[in-house]
């Protein structure tokens, strides 16, 4: 009984929630790098699509990639808005 009580008391509230901090750092880095890659991809593909010297297939691929990457950016924006709403 005494051992049980001691065991219960021996688990203090963590002074710093390193677990959450670690998640914030990891997810921020992953999401941030992912997002900058998608935004860069959308600009590169738009550049391909608009470049007159490119062949038709490159231009079509450019437009497809632009639309796909814009959809990715839109998803990120929606996630951001949902996070804001959830917190509020």
């Amino acid at each position, binding site marked *: 009984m005494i051992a049980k009580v001691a065991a219960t008391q021996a688990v203090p*509230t*963590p*002074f*710093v*929630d390193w677990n*959450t*901090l670690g*998640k*914030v*750092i990891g*997810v*921020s*880095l992953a*999401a*941030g*790098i992912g*997002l*900058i*890659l998608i*935004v*860069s*991809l*959308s*600009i*590169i593909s*738009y*550049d391909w699509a*608009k*470049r007159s010297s490119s062949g038709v297939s490159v231009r079509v691929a450019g437009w497809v990639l632009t639309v796909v990457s814009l959809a990715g*950016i839109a998803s990120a*924006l929606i*996630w*951001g*808005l949902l*996070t*804001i*709403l*959830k*917190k*509020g």
Partner: protein
Amino acid sequence: MHNSVVLGLVILLAIAFDFTNGFHDTANSVAPTIATKALPPRIAVGLSAILNLVGAFLSLKIAATIASGIVDQTHVTLAVVFAGLAGAICWNLTTWYFTLPSSSSHALIGGVIGATIASAGSAGVLWHGVVSKVVVPGVLAPLIALVLAGIATRICRGLLAGTGVQERGIGLRIAQIGASSLQSIAHGTNDAQKTMGVLTLALIANGTIATDSTTPSWVVITCAVAMGLGTFIGGWRIIRTMGHGFTELDPVAGLSAQLSSSVTILTSSHFGLSLSTTYVATGSVIGTGVATKGRAVRWGLAGRAGIAWLITLPVAGLVGALAYGVEALLGATFGAIVLGSVVALYSGSLFWLASRSPVTSSNVNEPWSTELGLEQVEAGA
């Protein structure tokens, strides 16, 4: 305990704090947009003001607390709220005058901690909460943002090197406006609700509304409008520091900074950790400078901002404690009137001093070496 005079002054001070919060924090979301000319200054600030207003109305789950988990809520009286707000406003305006970004939320927390210590002793402060909710996130926030913005800048600059100037310009501009808009909405939702919570708490503490009452509509509308107006007035002095002071931003750096800030703030929100928007935004801007070859970071200015962050809690706390002491000495009503007058006088003096070296929408983008505001100190560095 009913005291209409003190309650009225608390309401005025809370609205004033909300206003200073708006114009102090405008820079966090719009400084890179303005510095890289993605939007004209007035348009950028106007858009941010509208989105702050929208954000304030987006969700209304308002908690009638102030510095929750940081001070023992049983010690939070009308006098403590009043003194805490006085400390926060004085610190916000002082850092604005000295053109330094600093956290409005930390200023309010500092003011309330000081007033609580003066009222109930240090036992009224939950020091565990101060470290875990304020100090540790305060140190880590700029570092996380700095690293992320640095990596983002390198990636973006490398990938976009061969793209057409016009296509790159359009893409970066749209992305910057999107990231800035998201940050403005998040700020409106987060910070306006804090003041709504403070006002609701004051109304409950005064016995004006019942403990289980919802926040009155006039509180919601007033706080949203005060925050929006503050943002619209534009804290040009801090916008200039964030956009040109720490480092010069080009569109790639501007986008990297804004995306990094948005992602870090929203991710921390997602995990229930509250990071200071100001510290994150500043860390991001400095990170882009660190990652760009040949683009110096003005470490002297960054150091001054760092010192301001270090002393935010103690100084706002000291003012909060002094303010509480004055109230205790002169009595609640007379003390509050005297304190309100002192805060108004101090604020007016800073606005007058700032008007002698004004930073406005018309000169916010002038080269940093130009002597505006207080930056002549930095110009020689």
